[in-house]
């Protein structure tokens, strides 16, 4: 299903480009070679792009499975990146493993703190997390912009970016490439999350809440409100980690446009991966390739990189439609689950 959805997305892209007067063959060719054309493209473009998508996507899979809609991955990513930069600038004297650990745990904490606002609003005031996480994305982007032109601006005070973080706070690279150890972290995270989902009581409860909060409360005596809140909090912390990994592994500094919409693309990644950790890894690699190829497409075929958003959107819509068709054809169990999911307030 995922492959068919991706194909649908690419077909729509090609047709759209052809209609708009672009050379769609050249565009798709550039997309392919930019993503898989060489060892360097694969490691330094595709895999580097895939890392934040996989990490945020894993967190979103956790949130969505627990019945919490986190649309704020983008903001939490920035919160993590800000904390990572701040810490990374001041840990020069520490040995590398300690410095890296400090940077990444600071990022996790910042992501968790940033998402604590929607968690609190949901638990205490019944505000839909869909709206609150979305709104906080814009606050985080403005905050980043404020910081890189203010307290965190580089020492020359010319460019809207921070100074580079200490060498010791950076993640190790695969020699000859830009691929960093964050990929390992993402893969280990996927395995861990899979074990949590399948081997722990907590994971079972979480999935029960996501499938039907009322049923989970009545039959399983699970406090579904708190489970969903916890899932939301964890997903925010994980998105924060992705921001820290991006700073420590790729950018080494805070920029205004550090993320090309990773938090939104990760929603497509989580969904295309069918909220399964290994599915998220595969989907993250695919979308990493798409985003890496998009850059090449813009450079070589003069097609705006944002065009791949259309592919992503078509993929999401195709997956939704396919799921609807399956639900319609098969048992009513799945639709029952979505009917019982009710908005608080």
């Amino acid at each position, binding site marked *: 299903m995922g492959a068919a959805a991706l194909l649908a997305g690419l077909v729509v892209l090609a047709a759209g480009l052809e209609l708009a007067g672009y050379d769609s063959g050249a565009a798709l060719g550039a997309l392919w070679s930019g993503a898989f054309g060489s060892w360097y493209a694969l490691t330094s473009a595709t895999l580097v792009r895939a890392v934040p998508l996989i990490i945020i996507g894993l967190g979103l899979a956790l949130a969505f499975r627990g019945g919490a809609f986190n649309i704020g991955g983008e903001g939490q990513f920035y919160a993590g990146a800000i904390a990572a930069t701040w810490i990374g600038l001041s840990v020069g004297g520490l040995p590398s493993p300690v410095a890296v650990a400090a940077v990444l745990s600071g990022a996790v904490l910042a992501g968790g703190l940033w998402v604590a606002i929607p968690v609190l609003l949901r638990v205490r005031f019944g505000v839909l997390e869909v709206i609150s996480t979305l709104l906080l994305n814009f606050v985080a982007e403005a905050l980043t912009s404020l910081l890189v032109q203010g307290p965190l601006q580089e020492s020359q005070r010319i460019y809207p970016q921070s100074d580079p973080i200490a060498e010791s706070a950076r993640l190790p690279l695969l020699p000859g490439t830009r691929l960093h150890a964050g990929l390992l972290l993402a893969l280990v995270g996927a395995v861990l999350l899979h074990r949590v989902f399948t081997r722990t009581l907590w994971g079972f409860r979480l999935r029960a809440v996501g499938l039907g909060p009322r049923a989970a409360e009545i039959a399983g005596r699970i406090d579904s409100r708190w489970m969903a809140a916890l899932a939301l909090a964890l997903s925010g912390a994980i998105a924060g980690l992705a921001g820290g990994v991006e700073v420590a592994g790729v950018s080494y500094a805070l920029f205004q446009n550090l993320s090309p919409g990773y938090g939104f693309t990760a929603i497509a990644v989580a969904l295309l991966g069918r909220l399964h950790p290994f599915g998220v890894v595969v989907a993250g690699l695919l979308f990493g390739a798409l985003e890496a190829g998009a850059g090449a497409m813009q450079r070589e075929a003069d097609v705006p990189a944002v065009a791949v958003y259309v592919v992503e959107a078509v993929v999401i819509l195709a997956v939704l*439609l396919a799921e609807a068709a399956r639900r319609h054809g098969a048992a009513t169990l799945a639709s029952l689950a979505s009917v019982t999911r009710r908005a608080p307030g």
Partner: protein
Amino acid sequence: MDAMAVVEGFLAAAVRVATPLLLAASGEAVAQRSGVMNLGLEGVMLTGALAAALGAAAWGPWTGAGVAVVAGMLLAGVFALVAIGARADQVIAGTAITLAAVGLTGTIYRQAFGAAGAGLDLPTLSPLAVPGLSQLPVLGPAFFGQPAPTYIGLLAVPVIWWFLFRTRAGLALRATGEAAAVARASGVRTGLVRAAATVVGGGFAGLAGATLVLAQVGTFAERMTAGRGYVAIAIVVLGRWHPVGVALASLGFGAAMALQFLFQTLGLNVPYQLFLMLPYALALLALAGVVGRVRAPADLGKP
């Protein structure tokens, strides 16, 4: 500086900035009353903005606004097809629609106007002063000296109120949002009602985007809606799903966003990013204060 002139200028700016929010939120209120939350609103607004720019460049501002309405209805129709026709998840479908709109508008804009289209200068909708009323002190320029979309937005408030609370169709729409199963049993074609409400909401959002381009900025920029569609959704909640409440909340947000101009006029030096944050932070605070005490349509967001 004359204090009166400062207040007048601030109010006029507040209403001008509030207009796209008022239009988008009014339409979204109708959709939400029928049980549909369209997170694609941001994308629909953005699409309306580009459609208005293209239409205005070719045929003038009024046609541009019309093209924007049609474009908004079309994109909202796609959302309705997926979210209502196929009963897919509204939140995710809406996110996808916004993503698609960002990609589409960016691609089409660069194709139509070139990568460096910043200098794009469009014919705009000029202010239409209401004779007599626009001369009123303080409130005159704010409410009666604006371009046409402001009047459309202000007139939509009583019209939507009348439709929702005084017509049979409005009753059917509200019933669909409160208890879809019951409405269906009493003969209401709920899918059709929701689709229609969503498409009408899309038309409003399209016009909101057009307002941004044709009555405020005078040009199109990528992602120029900058979250206004999402703020409009928050405004619907703050306005308690009531057209008058939505109008008041819109004006409140317009005032918050216009503070930037007031501070500039007064020569106060505050980082502009604080003003960028303000509406969103304010929305969160207001939501926290208001949500516990209001009730959403009971079947909101359910397929």
